[in-house]
């Protein structure tokens, strides 16, 4: 009889351990948006679910952000040429891409997807809000992005500064806008796009020395375009600073 009575101790002990473990973990979760608040973009649902299943929201947000960058870097009219598939290699006429502005109607939805996956992705908040407000002239949507960021990081005061700069941009107040942005770009997570804009606004409002300094930080930018522009701007600004002093 003895072995039979002790045999049940093992499953009983196992069950007790299991219940104790699950009781301890009851209600514990990481503070991320729930699945019900999903902001998946067309065709991205399965991919996002895959990242969630692997417990890799941050990497999912990174991938979504890379897709956003690729979308934003694509030319708005890249599919307008009806003969695109019929050119002999090397003989296609040089395309006339629209390089400035652009509507990018999916930008907001894509940015929201990034922030649903990782609302603590500060660089993405700065980048999306900056691109919407200053490049695409969509300040209301930019403020909406900042609101999403603020909901998850309410103590992030640099979101407030960027919001203020966006508000000043409506009134064409370059100096005040530059002053607010100057404090935003102190953040290591601030994108080079905002640094470039701050330098430009400082130059526009006559603050050449500060513009020169900011362009100096852009010389090492991973974006070759920003680095080249910074070098060119510094050459223009140097005599202006010398002249002023």
């Amino acid at each position: 009889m003895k072995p039979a009575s002790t045999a049940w101790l093992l499953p009983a002990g196992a069950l007790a351990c299991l219940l104790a473990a699950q009781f301890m973990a009851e209600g514990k979760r990481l503070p991320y948006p729930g699945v019900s608040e999903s902001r998946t973009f067309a065709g991205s649902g399965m991919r996002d679910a895959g990242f969630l299943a692997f417990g890799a929201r941050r990497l999912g947000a990174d991938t979504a952000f890379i897709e956003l960058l690729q979308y934003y870097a694509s030319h708005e009219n890249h599919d307008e040429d009806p003969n695109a598939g019929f050119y002999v290699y090397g003989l296609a006429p040089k395309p006339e891409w629209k390089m400035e502005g652009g509507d990018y109607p999916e930008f907001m939805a894509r940015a929201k997807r990034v922030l649903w996956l990782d609302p603590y992705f500060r660089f993405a908040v700065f980048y999306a809000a900056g691109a919407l407000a200053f490049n695409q002239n969509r300040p209301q949507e930019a403020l909406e992005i900042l609101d999403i960021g603020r909901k998850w990081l309410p103590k992030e005061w640099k979101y407030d500064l960027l919001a203020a700069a966006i508000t000043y941009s409506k009134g064409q107040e370059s100096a005040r806008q530059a002053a607010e942005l100057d404090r935003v770009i102190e953040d290591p997570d601030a994108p080079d796009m905002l640094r470039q804009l701050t330098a430009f606004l400082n130059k526009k409002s006559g603050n050449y020395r500060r513009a020169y300094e900011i362009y100096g930080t852009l010389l090492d930018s991973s974006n070759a375009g920003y680095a080249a522009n910074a070098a060119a701007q510094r050459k223009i600004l140097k005599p202006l600073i010398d002249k002023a002093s």
Partner: protein
Amino acid sequence: MNRLSLASELARHTFLEQWRSRYFQLMVIFGAALVYASLLLGQLAVEQEGRVLFNSGALFLELAALGAMLLGCASSILRDMESKTIYLILSRPVPRWIYITGNYLGMAAAVGAAILCMGALHYLLLAFKGAAPSAEAYLLVMLAAWLKAAVAGALAVLVSLVSTSLLSAVMIAVFFWTLGHFVPEASFLAQRLQGPAGWLAKPLLWVIPNMSLFNYRETLDLPPGAFPGWGIALPYALLYICACLLFSVWLFRKREF
């Protein structure tokens, strides 16, 4: 030989066996290659290269460790049974619980060593790119990855004793590992379910391991207090592993060879 030294001898044997196993070596090399390949993904993110390198490398490291642990844990007993090695072991005065525990501890130690190797490579890459977190934070990321693998491995040992093949055992363990990342969502849905579906769903939730407790790498940039804490993660892992191993010992004791 007392029971502790028996268990440690078995664990040492499993550890060495794993490190000599081609599957294990392949898994570690593959994991290291993936960690290195995350450099490519980082390039795409331009200004956020460091973040992408950290996130992708940490995930690849975790997946490689999981693969090695699941394959090892699910195959070790089955292989011993197929090769008849188990007769040699159990015909000696080795209690069955020591066989299970020793095997498992050896596997966990081998995977821990593999995580350290892959993690060292990853950390070097991060440091080279100037994006390395503090050594303490990175050690905790590796500890969390090891705990996840250890929990999934204990589950794989249990499943391998009730399953008919290695593949099904691994698949079931992977299924539970995946579900483990959806525990809060599954709990929310279970609360909404009515009738028999609800009665079935709720007990299932008590079986699924809550893997989000070990997602330390997802909380590095979050405000303080976002991570549930090691005071919960460590005892949780220990209790869950104990539960799986106790069930495994119980099932293994009933087996006839």
